[in-house]
Protein backbone atom coordinates (compact mmCIF):
# COMPACT_ATOMS: atom_id res chain seq x y z
CA UNK A 1 0.00 0.00 0.00
CA UNK A 2 1.40 3.39 -0.77
CA UNK A 3 0.57 6.72 0.82
CA UNK A 4 -0.60 9.84 -1.07
CA UNK A 5 2.90 11.29 -0.58
CA UNK A 6 4.47 8.24 -2.22
CA UNK A 7 1.93 8.42 -5.05
CA UNK A 8 2.80 12.08 -5.64
CA UNK A 9 6.51 11.30 -5.54
CA UNK A 10 6.10 8.60 -8.18
CA UNK A 11 4.11 10.95 -10.39
CA UNK A 12 6.67 13.77 -10.10
CA UNK A 13 9.65 11.44 -10.59
CA UNK A 14 8.00 10.05 -13.73
CA UNK A 15 8.00 13.55 -15.24
CA UNK A 16 11.79 13.29 -15.52
CA UNK A 17 14.08 16.23 -16.07
CA UNK A 18 12.76 19.79 -15.84
CA UNK A 19 13.41 22.29 -18.61
CA UNK A 20 16.83 23.94 -18.30
CA UNK A 21 16.83 27.10 -16.22
CA UNK A 22 19.42 29.74 -17.13
CA UNK A 23 21.52 31.26 -14.35
CA UNK A 24 20.74 34.90 -13.57
CA UNK A 25 24.28 35.94 -14.50
CA UNK A 26 27.08 34.43 -16.55
CA UNK A 27 30.06 33.20 -14.54
CA UNK A 28 31.69 36.45 -13.43
CA UNK A 29 34.66 37.71 -11.47
CA UNK A 30 32.62 39.83 -9.04
CA UNK A 31 30.67 36.84 -7.68
CA UNK A 32 33.85 34.76 -7.62
CA UNK A 33 35.56 37.48 -5.57
CA UNK A 34 32.67 37.64 -3.09
CA UNK A 35 32.71 33.89 -2.73
CA UNK A 36 36.47 33.39 -2.19
CA UNK A 37 36.52 36.36 0.19
CA UNK A 38 33.73 34.87 2.32
CA UNK A 39 35.26 31.37 2.27
CA UNK A 40 38.79 32.62 2.90
CA UNK A 41 40.01 30.69 -0.13
CA UNK A 42 43.31 32.16 -1.40
CA UNK A 43 43.73 29.79 -4.36
CA UNK A 44 45.39 32.01 -7.05
CA UNK A 45 43.47 30.29 -9.87
CA UNK A 46 40.34 32.22 -8.87
CA UNK A 47 42.07 35.63 -8.84
CA UNK A 48 41.45 38.00 -11.76
CA UNK A 49 43.67 37.21 -14.73
CA UNK A 50 43.75 35.65 -18.16
CA UNK A 51 43.38 32.08 -16.92
CA UNK A 52 40.85 32.69 -14.15
CA UNK A 53 38.50 29.82 -13.38
CA UNK A 54 35.54 29.75 -11.01
CA UNK A 55 35.83 27.62 -7.86
CA UNK A 56 34.16 24.31 -8.77
CA UNK A 57 32.15 24.30 -5.52
CA UNK A 58 30.47 27.52 -6.71
CA UNK A 59 28.50 25.58 -9.33
CA UNK A 60 25.27 25.57 -7.33
CA UNK A 61 25.56 29.30 -6.50
CA UNK A 62 25.26 30.28 -10.18
CA UNK A 63 21.78 28.83 -10.49
CA UNK A 64 20.36 29.53 -7.01
CA UNK A 65 16.95 31.19 -7.29
CA UNK A 66 18.12 34.34 -5.44
CA UNK A 67 16.50 36.63 -2.90
CA UNK A 68 13.10 36.89 -4.57
CA UNK A 69 13.46 33.88 -6.83
CA UNK A 70 10.56 31.66 -7.72
CA UNK A 71 10.96 28.06 -8.64
CA UNK A 72 10.09 27.18 -12.22
CA UNK A 73 6.61 25.71 -12.69
CA UNK A 74 8.05 22.34 -13.70
CA UNK A 75 10.64 22.20 -10.93
CA UNK A 76 10.20 18.77 -9.32
CA UNK A 77 11.73 19.75 -5.99
CA UNK A 78 9.32 22.67 -5.64
CA UNK A 79 6.36 20.44 -6.45
CA UNK A 80 7.43 17.83 -3.91
CA UNK A 81 8.14 20.47 -1.24
CA UNK A 82 4.66 21.96 -1.50
CA UNK A 83 3.06 18.52 -1.19
CA UNK A 84 5.08 17.88 1.98
CA UNK A 85 4.31 21.40 3.28
CA UNK A 86 0.62 20.65 2.87
CA UNK A 87 1.07 17.40 4.77
CA UNK A 88 2.58 19.31 7.72
CA UNK A 89 6.27 18.67 7.00
CA UNK A 90 7.11 22.36 6.91
CA UNK A 91 10.80 22.53 7.85
CA UNK A 92 13.71 21.61 5.65
CA UNK A 93 17.36 20.79 6.21
CA UNK A 94 19.93 19.63 3.67
CA UNK A 95 21.60 16.31 4.50
CA UNK A 96 23.69 15.25 1.48
CA UNK A 97 25.39 16.92 -1.44
CA UNK A 98 27.41 14.97 -3.98
CA UNK A 99 28.83 17.17 -6.72
CA UNK A 100 30.82 15.98 -9.75
CA UNK A 101 32.73 18.54 -11.79
CA UNK A 102 33.47 17.62 -15.40
CA UNK A 103 35.49 20.77 -16.00
CA UNK A 104 36.08 24.18 -14.46
CA UNK A 105 34.14 27.21 -15.69
CA UNK A 106 35.54 30.50 -16.95
CA UNK A 107 34.10 34.01 -16.64
CA UNK A 108 31.62 34.68 -19.44
CA UNK A 109 30.23 31.14 -19.62
CA UNK A 110 26.49 31.00 -18.93
CA UNK A 111 25.27 27.86 -17.19
CA UNK A 112 21.78 26.43 -17.03
CA UNK A 113 20.48 23.68 -14.77
CA UNK A 114 17.86 20.95 -14.95
CA UNK A 115 16.35 19.11 -11.99
CA UNK A 116 14.86 15.68 -11.62
CA UNK A 117 13.29 13.98 -8.60
CA UNK A 118 15.10 10.74 -7.82
CA UNK A 119 13.36 9.45 -4.72
CA UNK A 120 11.27 10.27 -1.68
CA UNK A 121 11.69 8.06 1.39
CA UNK A 122 9.73 8.15 4.61
CA UNK A 123 8.15 8.84 6.91
CA UNK A 124 11.24 8.45 9.11
CA UNK A 125 11.75 9.32 12.74
CA UNK A 126 14.77 11.61 13.01
CA UNK A 127 16.41 13.71 15.70
CA UNK A 128 14.64 16.76 14.25
CA UNK A 129 11.18 15.23 13.95
CA UNK A 130 9.27 12.95 11.62
CA UNK A 131 10.16 13.61 8.01
CA UNK A 132 10.80 12.53 4.46
CA UNK A 133 14.14 12.38 2.65
CA UNK A 134 13.81 13.96 -0.80
CA UNK A 135 16.60 13.25 -3.29
CA UNK A 136 17.04 15.22 -6.49
CA UNK A 137 19.57 15.21 -9.32
CA UNK A 138 20.72 18.50 -10.83
CA UNK A 139 22.66 18.68 -14.08
CA UNK A 140 24.47 21.84 -15.18
CA UNK A 141 25.05 22.65 -18.82
CA UNK A 142 26.93 25.23 -20.87
CA UNK A 143 24.98 25.04 -24.13
CA UNK A 144 24.53 21.30 -24.64
CA UNK A 145 27.66 20.33 -22.72
CA UNK A 146 27.24 18.81 -19.25
CA UNK A 147 29.74 20.58 -16.97
CA UNK A 148 28.66 19.34 -13.52
CA UNK A 149 26.02 17.30 -11.74
CA UNK A 150 24.81 16.85 -8.20
CA UNK A 151 22.82 14.50 -6.07
CA UNK A 152 21.13 16.59 -3.37
CA UNK A 153 19.12 15.27 -0.44
CA UNK A 154 17.04 17.22 2.02
CA UNK A 155 15.03 16.17 5.04
CA UNK A 156 11.59 17.75 4.98
CA UNK A 157 10.32 17.40 8.53
CA UNK A 158 7.62 18.28 11.03
CA UNK A 159 9.55 20.34 13.60
CA UNK A 160 9.54 19.61 17.30
CA UNK A 161 8.40 16.02 17.23
CA UNK A 162 11.82 14.48 17.41
CA UNK A 163 13.44 12.61 20.20
CA UNK A 164 17.09 11.78 19.92
CA UNK A 165 16.69 8.27 21.24
CA UNK A 166 14.10 7.38 18.64
CA UNK A 167 16.16 8.67 15.78
CA UNK A 168 19.66 7.34 16.01
CA UNK A 169 20.24 4.20 13.95
CA UNK A 170 22.85 3.35 16.57
CA UNK A 171 20.03 3.11 19.11
CA UNK A 172 18.23 0.31 17.24
CA UNK A 173 18.45 -3.02 19.05
CA UNK A 174 20.80 -4.99 16.84
CA UNK A 175 20.47 -8.73 16.29
CA UNK A 176 23.34 -11.04 17.13
CA UNK A 177 24.56 -12.33 13.77
CA UNK A 178 26.23 -15.74 13.85
CA UNK A 179 27.64 -18.14 11.28
CA UNK A 180 24.24 -19.86 11.24
CA UNK A 181 22.28 -16.68 10.54
CA UNK A 182 24.59 -14.48 8.48
CA UNK A 183 23.06 -15.65 5.15
CA UNK A 184 19.71 -14.33 6.39
CA UNK A 185 21.09 -10.83 7.13
CA UNK A 186 23.05 -10.79 3.88
CA UNK A 187 19.70 -11.44 2.20
CA UNK A 188 17.84 -8.62 3.92
CA UNK A 189 20.57 -6.20 2.82
CA UNK A 190 19.78 -7.25 -0.76
CA UNK A 191 16.02 -7.15 -0.26
CA UNK A 192 15.72 -10.94 -0.11
CA UNK A 193 13.95 -12.95 2.55
CA UNK A 194 16.13 -16.07 2.78
CA UNK A 195 14.90 -19.20 4.52
CA UNK A 196 17.22 -21.96 5.70
CA UNK A 197 16.76 -25.26 3.85
CA UNK A 198 17.80 -28.75 5.01
CA UNK A 199 17.15 -30.98 2.03
CA UNK A 200 13.44 -30.49 1.35
CA UNK A 201 12.70 -29.01 4.77
CA UNK A 202 12.55 -25.25 5.31
CA UNK A 203 13.34 -23.97 8.76
CA UNK A 204 13.04 -20.58 10.41
CA UNK A 205 14.61 -19.19 12.50
CA UNK A 206 17.74 -20.79 11.09
CA UNK A 207 19.68 -23.08 13.39
CA UNK A 208 22.93 -25.05 13.46
CA UNK A 209 21.33 -28.48 13.01
CA UNK A 210 18.61 -30.02 10.86
CA UNK A 211 15.33 -31.14 12.52
CA UNK A 212 16.49 -34.79 12.39
CA UNK A 213 19.71 -34.01 14.24
CA UNK A 214 22.05 -35.24 11.49
CA UNK A 215 25.41 -33.74 12.44
CA UNK A 216 26.85 -34.22 8.93
CA UNK A 217 24.11 -32.31 7.13
CA UNK A 218 24.88 -28.91 5.61
CA UNK A 219 22.16 -26.29 5.18
CA UNK A 220 21.28 -24.28 2.09
CA UNK A 221 18.67 -21.58 1.66
CA UNK A 222 15.88 -20.43 -0.61
CA UNK A 223 14.59 -16.94 -1.30
CA UNK A 224 10.99 -16.72 -0.14
CA UNK A 225 8.41 -15.02 -2.37
CA UNK A 226 7.79 -12.69 0.55
CA UNK A 227 4.03 -13.08 0.70
CA UNK A 228 2.02 -14.60 3.51
CA UNK A 229 -0.69 -14.00 6.09
CA UNK A 230 -0.72 -12.90 9.71
CA UNK A 231 -0.65 -16.04 11.88
CA UNK A 232 -0.54 -14.12 15.16
CA UNK A 233 0.33 -10.62 16.30
CA UNK A 234 0.65 -8.29 19.24
CA UNK A 235 0.44 -4.53 19.70
CA UNK A 236 3.38 -3.15 21.66
CA UNK A 237 2.47 -0.16 23.87
CA UNK A 238 5.06 -0.21 26.62
CA UNK A 239 7.93 -0.04 27.45
CA UNK A 240 9.58 2.33 24.97
CA UNK A 241 11.89 0.60 22.49
CA UNK A 242 14.94 2.38 21.07
CA UNK A 243 14.31 3.56 17.51
CA UNK A 244 10.52 2.97 17.72
CA UNK A 245 7.44 5.02 18.37
CA UNK A 246 4.75 3.17 20.28
CA UNK A 247 2.30 1.64 19.70
CA UNK A 248 3.56 -0.63 16.95
CA UNK A 249 2.48 -4.02 15.67
CA UNK A 250 4.68 -7.12 15.66
CA UNK A 251 3.35 -9.91 13.47
CA UNK A 252 4.19 -13.59 13.16
CA UNK A 253 3.58 -14.23 9.48
CA UNK A 254 3.05 -17.60 7.89
CA UNK A 255 4.76 -17.45 4.52
CA UNK A 256 3.29 -19.12 1.44
CA UNK A 257 6.30 -21.46 1.73
CA UNK A 258 4.93 -22.67 5.09
CA UNK A 259 7.39 -21.28 7.63
CA UNK A 260 6.62 -18.47 10.06
CA UNK A 261 8.71 -15.31 10.33
CA UNK A 262 8.48 -12.52 12.88
CA UNK A 263 8.68 -8.81 12.05
CA UNK A 264 7.15 -5.42 12.61
CA UNK A 265 4.02 -4.72 10.58
CA UNK A 266 4.76 -1.26 9.21
CA UNK A 267 2.32 1.62 8.88
CA UNK A 268 -0.57 -0.48 10.16
CA UNK A 269 -3.20 0.82 12.53
CA UNK A 270 -3.56 -1.78 15.31
CA UNK A 271 -7.35 -1.79 14.75
CA UNK A 272 -6.97 -2.99 11.17
CA UNK A 273 -4.75 -5.96 11.93
CA UNK A 274 -6.31 -9.40 12.19
CA UNK A 275 -5.30 -13.02 11.87
CA UNK A 276 -5.29 -14.00 8.20
CA UNK A 277 -4.47 -10.47 6.97
CA UNK A 278 -2.46 -10.76 3.72
CA UNK A 279 0.99 -9.14 4.05
CA UNK A 280 4.21 -8.93 2.11
CA UNK A 281 7.83 -8.55 3.10
CA UNK A 282 9.41 -5.12 3.46
CA UNK A 283 12.97 -4.20 4.31
CA UNK A 284 13.96 -1.44 6.72
CA UNK A 285 17.50 -0.27 6.12
CA UNK A 286 19.16 0.85 9.37
CA UNK A 287 22.70 1.38 8.06
CA UNK A 288 25.24 -0.27 5.74
CA UNK A 289 25.46 -3.37 7.93
CA UNK A 290 21.89 -3.90 9.06
CA UNK A 291 18.59 -4.16 7.23
CA UNK A 292 15.64 -5.47 9.24
CA UNK A 293 12.91 -7.60 7.71
CA UNK A 294 9.40 -6.27 8.27
CA UNK A 295 5.88 -6.60 6.89
CA UNK A 296 3.42 -4.36 5.19
CA UNK A 297 -0.22 -4.93 4.40
CA UNK A 298 -0.69 -6.30 0.88
CA UNK A 299 -2.71 -3.99 -1.36
Amino acid at each position, binding site marked *: MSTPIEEAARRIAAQGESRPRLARDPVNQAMINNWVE*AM*GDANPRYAPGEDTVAPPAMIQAWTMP*GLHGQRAGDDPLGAMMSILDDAGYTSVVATNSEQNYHRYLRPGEHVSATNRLESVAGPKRTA*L*GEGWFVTTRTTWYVGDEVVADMLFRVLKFRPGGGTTAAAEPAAVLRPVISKDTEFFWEGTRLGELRIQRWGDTLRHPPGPMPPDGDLDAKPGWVVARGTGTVYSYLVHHHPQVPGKRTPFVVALVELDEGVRVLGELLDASPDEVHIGLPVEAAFVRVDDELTLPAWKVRA
Partner: protein
Amino acid sequence: MSITVGTELPPLTIEATPTFVISTALATRDFQDVHHDRDSAVARGSKDIFLNILTDTGLVQRFVTDWAGPEAFVRSIRIRLGVPCYAGDTLTFTGRVTACEGDDAEITVTATDSLGEHVTGTVRITLPGGGS
Protein backbone atom coordinates in the same frame (compact mmCIF):
# COMPACT_ATOMS: atom_id res chain seq x y z
CA MET B 1 54.19 16.68 -4.66
CA SER B 2 53.83 12.99 -4.06
CA ILE B 3 50.74 11.62 -2.42
CA THR B 4 50.50 8.37 -0.54
CA VAL B 5 47.63 6.64 1.17
CA GLY B 6 47.51 7.60 4.82
CA THR B 7 48.94 11.10 4.36
CA GLU B 8 47.27 13.44 6.84
CA LEU B 9 46.23 16.90 5.70
CA PRO B 10 47.11 19.90 7.87
CA PRO B 11 43.99 20.71 9.92
CA LEU B 12 41.98 23.84 9.10
CA THR B 13 40.15 25.77 11.80
CA ILE B 14 37.25 28.07 10.94
CA GLU B 15 35.68 30.46 13.44
CA ALA B 16 32.02 30.34 12.45
CA THR B 17 31.16 33.84 13.65
CA PRO B 18 27.73 35.29 12.77
CA THR B 19 29.51 37.40 10.14
CA PHE B 20 31.07 34.27 8.63
CA VAL B 21 27.76 32.37 8.57
CA ILE B 22 25.93 35.28 6.93
CA SER B 23 28.60 36.35 4.44
CA THR B 24 29.12 32.81 3.16
CA ALA B 25 25.35 32.20 2.89
CA LEU B 26 24.95 35.36 0.81
CA ALA B 27 28.08 34.67 -1.28
CA THR B 28 26.53 31.32 -2.21
CA ARG B 29 23.23 33.14 -2.96
CA ASP B 30 21.38 31.21 -0.27
CA PHE B 31 18.82 33.60 1.22
CA GLN B 32 17.03 31.12 3.51
CA ASP B 33 16.32 33.06 6.70
CA VAL B 34 17.83 30.38 8.97
CA HIS B 35 21.27 31.42 7.67
CA HIS B 36 21.00 35.15 8.48
CA ASP B 37 18.07 35.84 10.85
CA ARG B 38 18.46 34.47 14.37
CA ASP B 39 14.81 35.07 15.39
CA SER B 40 13.58 33.10 12.40
CA ALA B 41 16.11 30.35 13.01
CA VAL B 42 14.98 30.02 16.64
CA ALA B 43 11.30 30.07 15.62
CA ARG B 44 12.04 27.14 13.30
CA GLY B 45 13.54 25.12 16.11
CA SER B 46 17.25 25.95 15.82
CA LYS B 47 19.47 27.38 18.52
CA ASP B 48 20.87 30.10 16.26
CA ILE B 49 21.65 30.78 12.61
CA PHE B 50 23.75 28.01 11.10
CA LEU B 51 26.09 27.34 8.17
CA ASN B 52 24.48 26.38 4.87
CA ILE B 53 25.44 23.26 2.94
CA LEU B 54 26.85 25.21 -0.05
CA THR B 55 29.39 26.72 2.33
CA ASP B 56 30.29 23.29 3.70
CA THR B 57 31.05 22.17 0.14
CA GLY B 58 33.10 25.33 -0.38
CA LEU B 59 35.07 24.86 2.83
CA VAL B 60 35.77 21.21 2.04
CA GLN B 61 37.09 22.33 -1.36
CA ARG B 62 39.28 25.00 0.27
CA PHE B 63 40.59 22.58 2.90
CA VAL B 64 41.73 20.12 0.23
CA THR B 65 43.17 22.60 -2.28
CA ASP B 66 44.96 24.60 0.47
CA TRP B 67 46.93 21.39 0.92
CA ALA B 68 47.00 19.97 -2.62
CA GLY B 69 47.89 23.26 -4.29
CA PRO B 70 46.28 25.32 -7.07
CA GLU B 71 47.11 22.85 -9.84
CA ALA B 72 44.87 20.18 -8.28
CA PHE B 73 41.70 19.54 -10.32
CA VAL B 74 38.78 18.82 -8.02
CA ARG B 75 36.63 16.11 -9.61
CA SER B 76 34.00 15.59 -6.96
CA ILE B 77 32.97 16.67 -3.46
CA ARG B 78 30.57 14.36 -1.64
CA ILE B 79 29.44 15.39 1.81
CA ARG B 80 26.97 14.29 4.42
CA LEU B 81 25.82 16.62 7.16
CA GLY B 82 25.66 15.63 10.80
CA VAL B 83 25.11 18.09 13.65
CA PRO B 84 24.57 21.75 12.72
CA CYS B 85 27.29 24.38 12.92
CA TYR B 86 25.69 27.28 14.78
CA ALA B 87 27.08 30.82 14.80
CA GLY B 88 29.74 31.15 17.47
CA ASP B 89 31.09 27.64 17.12
CA THR B 90 34.49 26.58 15.82
CA LEU B 91 34.87 24.09 12.97
CA THR B 92 37.97 21.94 12.64
CA PHE B 93 38.62 20.12 9.37
CA THR B 94 40.81 17.03 9.35
CA GLY B 95 41.48 14.69 6.47
CA ARG B 96 43.65 11.97 5.08
CA VAL B 97 44.36 10.38 1.75
CA THR B 98 42.34 7.18 1.54
CA ALA B 99 43.04 6.10 -2.06
CA CYS B 100 45.59 6.85 -4.75
CA GLU B 101 45.82 5.69 -8.35
CA GLY B 102 48.09 7.33 -10.88
CA ASP B 103 47.42 11.06 -10.67
CA ASP B 104 44.09 10.56 -8.88
CA ALA B 105 43.61 10.67 -5.14
CA GLU B 106 40.67 10.42 -2.77
CA ILE B 107 40.69 12.37 0.47
CA THR B 108 38.34 11.61 3.34
CA VAL B 109 37.36 14.72 5.25
CA THR B 110 35.69 15.30 8.61
CA ALA B 111 34.71 18.63 10.15
CA THR B 112 33.79 18.70 13.82
CA ASP B 113 32.37 21.40 16.06
CA SER B 114 31.41 21.49 19.74
CA LEU B 115 28.32 19.34 19.05
CA GLY B 116 30.15 16.58 17.18
CA GLU B 117 30.66 15.68 13.51
CA HIS B 118 29.27 18.44 11.32
CA VAL B 119 30.42 17.14 7.94
CA THR B 120 31.90 13.90 6.69
CA GLY B 121 32.80 13.39 3.09
CA THR B 122 35.19 12.47 0.33
CA VAL B 123 36.89 14.59 -2.30
CA ARG B 124 38.42 13.20 -5.48
CA ILE B 125 41.21 15.19 -7.08
CA THR B 126 43.60 14.81 -9.98
CA LEU B 127 47.10 16.17 -9.47
CA PRO B 128 49.14 16.14 -12.68
CA GLY B 129 52.37 14.40 -11.73
CA GLY B 130 51.02 13.71 -8.25
CA GLY B 131 51.04 9.92 -8.34
CA SER B 132 53.52 8.16 -6.14
